[in-house]
C-alpha cells in the first residue's frame, strides 16, 4: 500500500482520527470495542466499522481474552506505517516546491 493510500485510510473519517489519537496517546491501551468507544465518547455502532478498517490496515490488532475480543495498537506496524506516511509527505512537499 502506498503512502498516500495509507494516509487516506488513516484519516478516512473523524471517528478513525479520534481512534488514532486515542491509541497514539495511550499506546498501552487494551480494551474491547465497547470500551474503546466509551473512551472516545462514541457509541459502539459508530466505532465498530472504523476499528475494522484499522485492523485491516494493521495499526490495530485483535485478540481473544476469555469471552471477550480486545483491540490494541501494534507498535511495530504503527511505526512502519508512520514512516511510509512521512516519506510520502516528503515527496509531496518536494514536488510542491518544484
Amino acid at each position: 500500500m502506498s503512502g498516500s493510500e495509507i494516509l487516506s485510510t488513516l484519516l478516512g473519517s473523524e471517528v478513525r482520527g479520534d481512534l488514532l489519537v486515542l491509541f497514539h496517546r495511550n499506546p498501552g491501551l487494551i480494551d474491547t470495542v465497547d470500551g474503546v468507544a466509551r473512551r472516545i465518547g462514541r457509541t459502539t455502532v459508530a466505532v465498530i466499522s472504523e476499528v475494522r478498517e484499522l485492523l485491516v490496515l494493521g495499526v490495530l490488532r485483535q485478540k481473544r481474552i476469555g469471552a471477550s475480543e480486545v483491540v490494541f495498537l501494534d507498535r511495530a506496524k504503527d511505526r512502519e506505517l508512520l514512516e511510509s506516511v512521512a516519506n510520502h509527505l516528503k515527496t509531496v512537499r518536494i514536488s510542491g516546491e518544484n
Partner: protein
Amino acid sequence: MTAPRSKAGASGFDQLFSGRVEEGLRVKTGIVELDEMLRGGFMPGDAVMLAGSAGTGKTTLALQYLVNGVKLGEPGIYVTFEELPDQIYRDAKNFGWDLRKLEEEDKFRVVCTSPNLLMESGDDSLLDDVLRDIQPRRLVIDSLSHLEMFVKRDDMRMEAYRVVRYLKTRGVSSVLLWESPQISGGSFSVTDVGLSFLVDCIVALKPVEIESSMRKALVILKMRGSDHDKRLREFEITPTGIKIESAFTNYEGIISGSPRKIASEKFMELFRGASEKRK
C-alpha cells in the same frame, strides 16, 4: 583464622539468623531510606501491597519503584485501570521520568485496560504478549481495589489470588495498589476482604494531622521472611519523587488517627517552659 566477612560486616551465618538476606538478592526500590527500612529491598518475586487513601502518593511511589528498576536493568510494567496512560506520562514527566522514552527502549510499558479483562481466563491472558515482549522483573497494578467493581465480594480473594499466582509463577515481583480508607481510627485492617493474607509485604501510606498541618506517614506493616523497620516514618512528595524522612519519634497514636505527643516529650516541653520563665 576468622571467617571472611561480608560488606555488611556479618557472616552468612549471622545474616541467616538475623533474618537478613544478601543485599544483591533483594529487589531494591531505589529509594535509599525505604530500602534501609526493608533491609535491602523487597524479597524477589514477592507480592507487595501498597495501601493508602487517595492522594497519599501510592502512584508516585509505584512509578518510582519501576523507573528505578529500569535503571538497575529490570524492565517494568505499570497496569492501570484508572488513569489513561497519557496522564501517567505527563505526571511522571513532572518528576523527571520520561516513560515514553523507556517504552521506546522496550524497558517499560504502561498497560491500560479494564479489570474484568485482566481476570478473563482463556488460553491467553491479557498480559501474555507484553510479558513476552519486555520480560519484566517488576509489575505494578493500579489498583487491585478496582477488581471489586467486577467481582462478588466473596470471590474477591480468589480472583486476587489468581492474579498474584499468575505473576509469581512468572517470577515477577509485583506491587499491588490498594485504596484503603480504613487505615484510620482504631482499626489496623488494611482490606476488609482478607487480601492481607495473600500478599507477602504490606506498605501503608497515611495522611496524619499534626499541629494543624497535614503530613504523610509510611509504615511497613508486614514483611514475610524478613526483618524490617517497624517505625512510622514521615515522607514527602518532592519534585524528584518520594523522600523518606525520620521517624515520628515524639508522637504516638498516629496510625489510630489521634496523634499526641508522648508523655516524656510533654514533660520536657513543660520543663523547658518553666526554665525559660525563670530566666
